């Protein structure tokens, strides 16, 4: 569409992620997570000054070993976690292992990971994000379940996915139905465009709400305070320099 937006995709996603952070909670993201890192730092500047942030592999971490982080999660002390996968499906399952369903002959092999498959059940809320909103990334059924969106009632589980954030839309996870449902469409996109680019049924009848655009204040703080903080602390510094405030 021809509507000109005054923010980039990365800035939009960082702002949307920041809105998921609640004041006073422990909120965390893993390694290779520049977008959630920016979102977490933005939330702390704006509405969640008392949020405790854990951004793994940066200076924003209360401890040094993965064992401590593991048991913090197991104790149920994580309020919010950000996770991503190469595929995400209708049921909130995500895949961080492989493309292709044959375990012996995957078409593409990804890092996998035990951590996400553990934290997905322990953090009170997990926000799943994907920077590519296409039919190959948002699918009816993932090729490999690295973490399951829901579990039977008799399974020990402390938390669930809460939301899926992409550059085009937000989906909310309906726990009772164990499915993702389109929640809001980001400015400049239509429900029809979301439908064309999503590999599963959106589960909605129109009209669907429009995601509130990043405010001037959110963008100002993201581009000034958060950007400098990321550069100064070596928290995805190169990415911050390039991606925040240069749109």
């Amino acid at each position, binding site marked *: 569409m021809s509507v000109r937006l005054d923010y980039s995709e990365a800035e939009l996603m960082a702002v949307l992620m920041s809105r998921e952070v609640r004041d006073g909670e422990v909120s965390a993201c893993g390694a290779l997570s520049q977008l959630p890192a920016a979102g977490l730092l933005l939330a702390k500047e704006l509405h969640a000054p008392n949020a405790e942030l854990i951004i793994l592999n940066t200076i924003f971490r209360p401890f*040094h*070993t*993965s*064992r401590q982080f593991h048991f913090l*999660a*197991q104790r*149920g002390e994580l309020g919010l976690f950000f996770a991503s996968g190469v595929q995400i499906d209708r049921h909130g*399952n995500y895949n961080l*292992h492989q493309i292709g369903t044959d*375990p012996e002959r995957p078409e593409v092999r990804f890092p*996998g990971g*035990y951590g996400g*498959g*553990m*934290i*997905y*059940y*322990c953090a009170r809320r997990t926000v799943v994000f994907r920077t590519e909103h296409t039919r190959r990334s948002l699918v009816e059924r993932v090729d*490999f*379940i*690295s*973490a*399951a969106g*829901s*579990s*039977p009632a*008799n*399974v*020990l*589980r*402390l938390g669930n996915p809460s939301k899926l954030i992409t550059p085009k839309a937000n989906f909310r996870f309906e726990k009772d139905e164990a499915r993702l449902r389109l929640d809001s469409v980001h400015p400049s996109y239509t429900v029809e465009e979301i439908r064309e680019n999503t590999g599963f049924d959106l589960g909605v009848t129109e009209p669907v709400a429009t995601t509130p655009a990043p405010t001037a204040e959110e963008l100002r703080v993201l581009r000034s305070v958060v950007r400098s903080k990321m550069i100064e602390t070596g928290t995805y510094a190169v990415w911050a320099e390039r991606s925040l405030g240069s749109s």
Partner: protein
Amino acid sequence: MGVPYVPVFGLVGTDLLKRRDDMVLAPDPFDGKTISVVAKAMRPDVAVFHVDRADRQGNVSCGYPVEAVILAEASQHVIVTAEEVVDRLDEKDAIGAFVPSILVDAVVHAPFGSHPAGMTGRYGPDKVHMQQYVAASRDDAAFAQYLRTYVFDVESHADYVERFVPRELQRPSRAA
């Protein structure tokens, strides 16, 4: 910990469990109902890890925070390779994780033992070598050739360092 298995929150319903025989679903023995994953304890025969400094008794200063203690505790035998071997190392002098000598069976002096990866405080990764490794890992023949060159046809660790660790990494000014 010394326990035979441990329950964990998570992983139920994942395809990961289909591929592992050391993690199974089991009911809570107290309520008899609640299901969780139970992971079998790992008891390696031998653990080998590389550290910053070790002394002749086997006390170890890893050089950075790392889960070396639980690894050493879990394993029947522990072999430590070290950038530097000193006469006496006390826990209060340790940088990062400290492993006491009672857990360690053998210490090997192996400067640049992390190559082509880096060693915190001493040298950075050898990025050129890393790229070669990634390229070689793309097919079996290339990888076999890599192993011949860098592992099987190497006479000793000193020979490896002499031939394959770039001179600029060996200068202290390039420490990571």
